[in-house]
């Protein structure tokens, strides 16, 4: 079971873009896989339900969390856009 609500994340990408922070890896992959070159392009795509056939893969505790008293999890999903299948890893997160 995912730890977080993916649809709330998608809604954030549409309505509260300042609360979403794509990491460098996410932007690099978004560019190379889908031609999405800016944060705006990427979040607009996600917020517009661009991730088709979205399927939950697994959830893991964030290993690099320096605060061990507050657990943070990462949910991984796979999705498709046109012909490209991608795994959505925790490269994008909500700002604290």
């Amino acid at each position, binding site marked *: 079971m995912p730890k977080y609500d993916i649809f709330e994340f998608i809604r954030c990408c549409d309505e509260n873009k300042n609360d979403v*922070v*794509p*990491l*460098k*890896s*996410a*932007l690099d992959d978004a560019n190379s896989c889908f*031609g999405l*070159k*800016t*944060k*705006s392009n990427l979040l607009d795509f996600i917020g517009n339900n661009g991730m088709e056939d979205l399927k939950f893969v697994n959830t893991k505790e964030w290993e*690099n*969390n*320096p*605060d061990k008293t507050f657990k*943070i999890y990462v949910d991984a999903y796979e999705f498709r856009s046109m012909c490209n299948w991608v795994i959505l890893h925790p490269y994008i*997160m909500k*700002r*604290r």
Partner: protein
Amino acid sequence: MEKLICPACGSSNLVKSNYHEYVTENIGGQVLIDKVLYQCPDCGLEGDFFNENELAIEKALSDLKNKLVVSILDGFTENKVSLSSIERALDLPQRTLTKWKNGASAPTSAGIALLKFIKLFPWLLEVAENKFDYEISQKIFMGNAFQKMISKMTFIESEFKEAGVITSANSTFLYIHMHKNEDINAMGYGNITPMVTIS
């Protein structure tokens, strides 16, 4: 000054660095720009946490697209295809393409996509000229496909005199004209020109 904190772990030890990276615009080329990167030594995450690269990337892409538009339109003009006739065939307001070329107005993303398509597949203009009629479009498409295919095929000169494609709005012929050769066996096409027609 507001202290910058890592959006993931809350650390205030962010390290900022600058680097250069190419911004590429599909068939529009690329340009090198300066970018900012923040790295968190406490959790290891990195990225443009404060949206400092967005404007630079958008400007670079806009410049590349403007150059691409001019290049595509110049290409048509150099090949004696008038912008006015393209506008007529595509049902665009007259002088649209001239304005794009001169920078008086900028094409939308849809306009740029359209230009890319007609640059890659100029025969689409013929499809538009024929009012996007489905049957005629198929013939135009297949005629172009055959011409491409013929250009890639290797013919033995001693056996093949000529090969080519003849197209019209109503039909497309692929012809292969072979020399008369008694040694050509199985198909028995020693003195007959085989043809494939699409009508």
